[in-house]
C-alpha cells in the first residue's frame, strides 16, 4: 500500500514537472528545429560551395514540395492524437492512377482534378471513421494501405496507367514566376494549414482533442468527427501529391511512391510535433520537410551513397524525436 502511494506521487510529480517545463519554455522546440536548419546551412556552406546557392535552394524546396504537401496534411492527424497514417503512399499512387485514367479517358483536367481529390478524401474519411470507432490508427491505415494498393493493382492489372495526352502538363510542369506549381502548392498549403490550425475553431478543437481526449469529450467536442476530418485532410494531401506527380510524369503506377509515407512521417517528427497529439505546428513540419530534403541534397552533392543518405535520415529522426521528448519533459 505504501509502495503504491509512493509510485502515485512519483507519477504526479513527473506530470507536474512536465507541465511546468512545457509552460516555462514554449520556444525550446522551435529553437532546436531552427538551430538544426542553421547548422545544416553552416556545414553545407563551409564544406560545399554549391550547397548554399539560390539555384540549389530552389532544387531543395522543389524536392521537398511533394513530401511537404503530404507532411503538412498529415500533421492534422498527428495533432488530433491519432499518431500517423501508413496509407499515404498508396493513396497517392491510387490518386495518380485515377487521375491518369480520367485524363486518358478525356474527362478534362478540372473534372479529373476534382474527382481524384474527392476519391482521396473519401478514402481518408473512411479510415477516419474506423479510427473514430475505436480502432488503432497505425494498424487500420496499414491494412487500408495494403487494400488500396491491391485494389489499384487489380483495377489496372498492375500496369502503368498513362495520361496519353498533354492537357495536364501545365499542372505538373508549370512554373509561374520561375517556381514550380508543386512548390507554390506546398507554400500556400502550409500557410492555409497554419491558419486553419491556429485561427479557426476547427484547429483549436483538433488540438484540444489531441491534448486531452477525455476533457474534450466532456466539453462536448465530437472526437469522431475530428478524427474523420483529420484523416480526410491527410488523404487529400496524398491525393494532391499523386495528382501533381501523375501530371508531371504523365502516368500513374501502383508503386509510384515507395518512400512517401515514411518521409512524410519523418518530416512531421523532425518538425517536432508531439506524437501523442495536442501540440504541433504546420510551419515546423514544412521546415522538417525542407530539412530532410536539404540533408539529402547535401549528401548527394558530397557524393554519398543511398545507404548513407537513408541511414543519416534515420539518425536525424531518432536524434530529433529523442531530443524533443527529453526537452519537453525536463527544465534545463
Amino acid at each position, binding site marked *: 500500500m505504501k*509502495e*503504491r502511494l509512493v*509510485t*502515485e506521487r512519483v*507519477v504526479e510529480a513527473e506530470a507536474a514537472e512536465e507541465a511546468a517545463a512545457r509552460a516555462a519554455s514554449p520556444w525550446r522546440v522551435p529553437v532546436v528545429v531552427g538551430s538544426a536548419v542553421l547548422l545544416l546551412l553552416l556545414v553545407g556552406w563551409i564544406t560545399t560551395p554549391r550547397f548554399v546557392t539560390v539555384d540549389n535552394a530552389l532544387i531543395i524546396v522543389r524536392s521537398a514540395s511533394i513530401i511537404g504537401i503530404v507532411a503538412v496534411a498529415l500533421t492534422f492527424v498527428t495533432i488530433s492524437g491519432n*499518431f500517423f497514417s501508413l496509407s499515404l503512399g498508396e493513396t497517392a499512387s491510387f490518386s495518380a492512377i485515377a487521375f491518369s485514367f480520367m485524363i486518358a479517358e478525356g474527362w478534362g483536367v478540372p473534372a479529373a482534378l476534382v474527382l481524384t481529390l474527392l476519391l482521396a478524401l473519401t478514402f481518408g474519411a473512411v479510415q477516419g471513421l*474506423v479510427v473514430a*470507432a*475505436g*480502432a*488503432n490508427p*497505425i*494498424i*487500420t491505415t*496499414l*491494412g*487500408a*494501405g*495494403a*487494400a*488500396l*494498393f*491491391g*485494389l489499384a*493493382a*487489380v483495377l489496372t492489372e*498492375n500496369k502503368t496507367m498513362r495520361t496519353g495526352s498533354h492537357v495536364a502538363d501545365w499542372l505538373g510542369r508549370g512554373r509561374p514566376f520561375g517556381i514550380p506549381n508543386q512548390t507554390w502548392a506546398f507554400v500556400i498549403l502550409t500557410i492555409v494549414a497554419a491558419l486553419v490550425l491556429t485561427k479557426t475553431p476547427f484547429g483549436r478543437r483538433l488540438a484540444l482533442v489531441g491534448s486531452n481526449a477525455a476533457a474534450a469529450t466532456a466539453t462536448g467536442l465530437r472526437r469522431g468527427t475530428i478524427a474523420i476530418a483529420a484523416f480526410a485532410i491527410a488523404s487529400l494531401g496524398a491525393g494532391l501529391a499523386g495528382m501533381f506527380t501523375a501530371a508531371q510524369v504523365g502516368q500513374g503506377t*501502383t508503386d509510384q511512391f*515507395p518512400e512517401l509515407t*515514411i518521409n512524410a*512521417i*519523418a518530416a512531421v*517528427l523532425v518538425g517536432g510535433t508531439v*506524437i*501523442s497529439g495536442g501540440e504541433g505546428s504546420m510551419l515546423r513540419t514544412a521546415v522538417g520537410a525542407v530539412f530532410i530534403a536539404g540533408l539529402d541534397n547535401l549528401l548527394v552533392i558530397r557524393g554519398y*551513397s*543511398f*545507404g*548513407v*543518405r*537513408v*541511414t*543519416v*535520415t*534515420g*539518425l536525424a*529522426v*531518432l536524434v530529433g*524525436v*529523442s531530443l524533443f*521528448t*527529453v526537452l519537453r*519533459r525536463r527544465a534545463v
Partner: protein
Amino acid sequence: MIPRLRIGRVMASRLVLAVGVFAYFALSDDRFFTTNNVFTIFEGFAQLGLAALAIGLTIIAGELDLSIGSAAAVGGILAVTWAGLGLVPAVLLVTLVGAGFGAIQGYLIHRLKIASIVFTLGTLIGLRGLAFLISNEDTVVVPDLDIARVVKHQLWIFSPFSLVTIAVLIATAVFLWYSRWGREIFAIGGGRSEAVAAGVPLRRPLVLTFMLSGAMAGLTGALTSLKSGSAAPGGFADLLLPAATAALIGGVAITGGSGSVLGIAVGSLTLRFVISGLSLRAEPYYVLTFVTGMLLLIVIALELLVDRPEARQRFGMWRARLGRGGSRASPA
C-alpha cells in the same frame, strides 16, 4: 499474478476459423491437402510465424515495433555475409545481434520515455539505410549453396527452418506462461499504470519485449535469406503487414495485455492457408496483398464489434431502438 487467459471464447473461435479456412481450401482444391503443399504452407509459416511473434509480443506489451522489416533485412545480409562461419554459428550470431539491438532499443524507449512507434519508425529508416550500407547496395549471395539446401531440406511436411520456428514458438509460450518476467509483459500491456502501481518494474519487460522482437526479426531474416541463398538490402519491406495481420487474426488484442503464442501460431497458419489457397489458383502477388489488407481490416472491424464492451453496448442500444429486445441498453 496470472495473465488474463482468454483461451476460452477467443481461442476457440480462432481455432474454428483456422480449421474452417483449411477445410474450405482442402475441399475446393485437390492440390491443397497434399504433403508437398502442406510443406509449402509450413515454409511460409516458418517465416511468418517468427515475424508475427515479434510484432505480437510488442502489441501484447502495449507497444509496437515498426522496425521488424528493416531489422530482418539487416539480419538477412549479416547471415549471408557470415555464412562462411557455418550455418548454425551464423544464425545464432545474427539472432544475438538482433537481440542486442532490440535490447538497446527497448532500453532507450524506456529511458527516454518515448513512444515506441516513433522510436521504431526512426530505426525502421536507419536500419534500412544500414542494410544498404553493409551490403554495398547490392544483393549478397552465400558462398556455398549447400547451406540453402540444408535450411530448406524437406522432412515430410517440415524443414529445419519450420522446425526452428516451431521450437522458438514453444519456448516463447513456455517463457510467457511460466516465468514472472514473461507475465510482466502481459501486465504492462493490459493496464500500465495499474501494473506500475502494483510494483511491476517497467524497464525489464520493455527491454525484454524489444529484445525478443529484435531477435525474432533477425532470426526470420537470417533463415529466410539463407534458405534462398541471397539477401537484398531492400528486402522484407512488406513484412509488417502479414505479421500484424497474423497476430491479430490469432486473437492478440490491439489494446494490449492479451493474446497468446498459440493464437499467434494459429493466426499465422490461417493466413498461410489463405495465401496458399490463392497461390494455387495462380493469383498474382497484388491480389494476395489486397486480401491480406482486407483481412486485417475485417479483423479490426470484428474486434471493434465483438470484443469491446462499449461497442457491444451500442449494438444493444441499436437493437433496443429497433424494438428487437436488447436488455443491456443502459448506458454505463
